[in-house]
């Protein structure tokens, strides 16, 4: 994928979205990868005993997916500095999580080219379940 440069970016610009299916295998992979073995994410009976309709996608996985969205956009020459998000809505198992971002500003800071973004995840109905903000550094031409 071609490198995105600081000069190419403008406020209001939407970055390419990332769609990730979150089936039981994905959630078990994440449990192992992150070390979060809380059963509400892979044990349906356990999840239902806590009052949930079914297993839910880990919030931290959605945070990490927003990180990947930005990492893949920023390319080899860029760097994801910060992603902050809130888990406002639950994403149920077996549903796609769509990660999106829009540029909200750009600035130069101590010699770095910094881009601020609004980022979020959407459920299949288009509802924003994980709103957040992010800071990315991009190379200059």
């Amino acid at each position: 994928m071609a490198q995105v440069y600081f000069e190419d970016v403008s406020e209001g610009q939407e970055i390419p979205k990332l769609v990730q299916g979150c089936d039981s295998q994905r959630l078990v992979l994440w449990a192992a990868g992150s070390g979060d073995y809380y059963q509400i994410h892979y044990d349906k009976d356990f999840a239902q005993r806590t009052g949930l309709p079914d297993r839910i996608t880990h919030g931290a996985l959605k945070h990490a997916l927003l990180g990947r969205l930005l990492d893949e956009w920023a390319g080899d020459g860029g760097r994801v500095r910060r992603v902050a998000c809130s888990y406002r809505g639950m994403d149920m198992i077996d549903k796609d999580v769509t990660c999106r971002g829009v540029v909200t500003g750009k600035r130069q800071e101590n010699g770095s080219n910094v881009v601020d973004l609004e980022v979020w995840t959407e459920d299949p109905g288009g509802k924003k379940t994980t709103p957040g903000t992010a800071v990315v550094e991009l190379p200059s031409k």
Partner: protein
Amino acid sequence: MTQQQASVITDEMRARIGVESEPVAHEVDNTGCRQFARSVGYTDPIYFDEAAAKGKGHRAVVAPYGFLGHPVVVPGQAAHVPEAFRLAIPYKRVLNGGTDIEYLAEVCAGDRLAATTKLTELTEREGKMGPMLIVSTETAFRNKNGETVAIQRGTAIRY
């Protein structure tokens, strides 16, 4: 009918706000980086292959965004769980409220990080599933030179 819920925040809990924990060792290794990267769906070889990572100017296999190693846990030894996570809260269930990770430097396989955590805020709220206690924490990750490489802020919703 509304009923005033008694606060579950004790003076003891309040006294822990701002107190930094003892450091917990987090090991960042090749397998951990690969496993985390695979679970998030990364395909960039810098997260899997040392030669590819070095070829792109990195020190070693790169820890993907959000991976700050795994805490070292030895069965039979007292778990090094920071105080901020050991509060005497009467609610059994927990949900993750949010995550914020800020990087100040790149983290790579081979790094051994010292994580210190402090409780930053306790807030009570009435939610759909009953009374909730929102526990906010901040963890600083330092490398072997004592430099802070990442700061993680999180909220746990106890209910």
